[in-house]
């Protein structure tokens, strides 16, 4: 087992890869009561198309299947519910599906060994029947309908749909009520057998435990499960053109004020470079749109934005996006003002004082995020997707230069800006 100590942050990471390919990362923090455990597969809503290792044939699957599979993993062959069993250990269990991964997790203050053993066991026990799939379709359809009522969710995906033509990013992680009805037990097994092999998975433990004892527990648990070597999975991502799908679209919902989303499609990178670009974009946006900037003040004073205004960088595999969201009385005017401000970045001469201040602020915010076991655990898994250990991030922040910021600003193209608007449904017009 390898141990790396990060002096400046006073954190240690233990790492070991098991014989069956499962990667284990442990971050002991013994002044906490809690342990936060995650068991993650690199399988998310992006992975709809792949070569089945069993048959060697290409498989195309319905939208939303990774999320559906996550739900179904909790049904056990003995008719028990894994969620319920975990809660009997006295731990809080959860699971989530992202674009590129599915995580099963629990946090607790006692029975950690038992709960961890069970976490590994239940995720490695697929059990899908025709009947249980049908029942789950009802539950997930209800979940999707609930999301359909969330204007911010519609806004987010609406923007991505306008920006991306082929990239699966424009598809909701949960799929649609229609697509999930195409899911069958057989399809779930196909996905499971491909993506839930230990070599495509990792365990991350953070909190109060002894690393040696935990590693032994995981090794013993995996020893007798008979996993055979599996080749790296071949996945297919459709090739995304540089051009956007459409510059603008609108829908109506029962909201009180119009909502605008505006995004810029940028050139993606991969691995550590992508992470550095992501940080550089975040600093760039802070320099020109944070609440200490002229742009922000102008938009606020002309009453085009309010507290809901936010911006973010969205960095995913083969996709890199600059995005703005906000409620506004005049989406058309806000859109044109924001677009002007964004395009002005291309020829902007950047002030080193502002740059350094925002870099310092980015660093501080990162250190603050190390406060909870949960955010360390989530963050750690997240940065691993870029091949980076979370505690190296401060160095990457330090390494960002004004030239990096400039390069991103130059990548902004007027034809690659899209917007999406949620308008109040007729009967709901706001009176403000």
């Amino acid at each position, binding site marked *: 087992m390898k141990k790396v100590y990060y002096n400046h942050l006073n954190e240690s990471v233990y790492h070991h890869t098991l014989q069956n390919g499962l990667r284990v990362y442990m971050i002991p923090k013994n002044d906490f009561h809690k342990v936060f455990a995650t068991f993650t597969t690199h399988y998310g809503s992006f992975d709809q198309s792949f070569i089945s290792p069993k048959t060697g044939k290409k498989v195309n699957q319905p939208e939303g299947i990774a999320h559906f599979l996550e739900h179904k993993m909790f049904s056990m062959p003995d008719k028990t519910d894994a969620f319920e069993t975990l809660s009997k250990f006295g731990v809080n269990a959860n699971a989530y599906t992202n674009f590129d991964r599915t995580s099963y997790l629990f946090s607790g203050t006692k029975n950690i060994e038992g709960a961890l053993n069970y976490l590994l066991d239940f995720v490695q026990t697929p059990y899908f029947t025709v009947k249980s799939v049908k029942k789950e379709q009802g539950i997930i359809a209800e979940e999707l309908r609930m999301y359909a009522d969330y204007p911010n969710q519609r806004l987010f995906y609406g923007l991505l749909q306008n920006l991306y033509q082929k990239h699966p990013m424009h598809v909701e992680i949960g799929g649609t009520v229609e697509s999930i009805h195409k899911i069958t037990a057989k399809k779930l097994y196909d996905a499971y057998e491909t993506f839930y092999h230990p070599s495509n998975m990792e365990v991350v433990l953070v909190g109060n435990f002894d690393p040696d004892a935990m590693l032994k527990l995981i090794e013993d648990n995996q020893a007798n499960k008979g996993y055979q070597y599996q080749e790296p999975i071949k996945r297919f991502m459709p090739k995304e053109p540089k051009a956007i799908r459409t510059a603008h679209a609108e829908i109506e919902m029962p909201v009180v004020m119009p909502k605008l989303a505006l995004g810029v499609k940028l050139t993606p990178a991969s691995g550590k470079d992508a992470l550095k670009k992501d940080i550089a974009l975040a600093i760039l946006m802070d320099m020109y749109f944070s*609440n200490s900037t002229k742009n922000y003040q102008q938009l606020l004073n002309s009453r085009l934005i309010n507290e809901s205004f936010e911006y973010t960088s969205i960095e995913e595999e083969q996709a890199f996006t600059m995005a703005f969201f906000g409620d506004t009385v005049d989406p058309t005017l806000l859109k044109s003002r924001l677009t002007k401000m964004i395009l002005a970045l291309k020829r902007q001469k950047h002030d080193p004082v502002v740059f350094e201040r925002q870099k310092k602020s980015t660093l501080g915010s990162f250190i603050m995020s190390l406060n909870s076991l949960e955010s360390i655990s989530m963050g750690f898994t997240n940065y691993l997707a870029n091949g980076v250990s979370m505690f190296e991030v401060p160095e990457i922040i330090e390494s960002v230069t004004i030239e990096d910021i400039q390069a991103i600003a130059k990548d902004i193209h007027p034809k690659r800006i899209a917007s999406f608007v949620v308008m109040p449904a007729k009967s709901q017009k706001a009176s403000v």
Partner: protein
Amino acid sequence: MILVDQTKKFKTVLITLKFKRVAKVDEFAFRTLLPSVLRTKTNQYKNRQQFNEKLESMYGASLTSNTNKTGILSIIHVQLKLVNPSLALDHKLFSEGLNFLKEYIYGHDTFNEKDFELEKSLLIEEVVSKENDKTRFALTRLFEEMCQGELYGARVSGTKAQLEALTFKQFKKMYKDFVENDELQIILSGDVDKKDVSLTQTIFPNASFSPMDFLDYETKSVQAVTEVVEHDKISQTKLNIGYRFPIRQGDSKHVAAVLFNAALGGYVHSRLFLNVREKHSLCYYVSSVYDAYKGILFIYSGVDAKRLDLAKKVIDEEVKRMCTERISEKELALSKQALINDLKESEDSQGARQNLIYIQTLLGKTPTLAERIEKIEQVTPEDLLEVGKLLVKDTVYLLDVER
């Protein structure tokens, strides 16, 4: 007195100011608006930009402020979160933070009417847009209907009408009253030492701490269950049910009431979740919450609109079973375990620890973690039946799809 939670566990230092007074409905609008107006400018920071630049230069320190109701109190919380100065290698950071907070609250020889009007309309927009969150909106409506005429039924952030009616002149007068009459309580948390505490006392000589019973005893006797139905363009019906549950924090039955709620709908092992959501697939979320400052319990759920009647029936049955049938030791043990786990977990959160210390000190009771766990262990299935007898259904609020 400054409350201190000294610990090296976290990477941040929290400086929390709490301004408290007994809540009055006609002051809600002012108290909600105040923190944002204070940010627009101070004597030292001439505008919002300068103010926010200062925060950024303190390693992205975050200043959060909000106003809420805790029992009968209205509390304005102001919290500055700093990177632990030793990690930022900047030892002036703590005193810089204190002085910044002082300037934020007290550095206002004048206010600007334009700033006031802007913040006011921004807040009105926020209040109105909160109605977009239908789950939350349906809960607010439940409390308004159930607790008509009680403090609890009033919207804490003030209504649109209350905000619109607030004038600049009134605002200035109320600010003066706030500075003079709110009690300032301060809590420090993180890697702080004695020097930091005395520096805090020097910079805020007006900080004090007087314990008080802040619980909300207002209630009514329920003659018949009120049912309110409203419609909206939504795809899922929100079904909320409110009960009077006249047991409050510190009552001898309090811990049993907490466990009653835990077994009914507080957790994923609870009956509502298992029977309404899992067994019958009637809804996506269903939970119960017990408010021990007020003595009420409520169930909130998002229900498949087509099966609303069945959902209502199943929820009623589950509540009835809790109140009339003795729960097994085994089932109760699950809730105890979950609750104890929560207590321990909250020791790992800097914010939760601060809240706990604050509430405990306010009530003048500071049991240790071990003592609190022991109290939970002592509760019996009979205790749950006893508290169940006190539960009275008051109001059903439905935000339904358009039919």
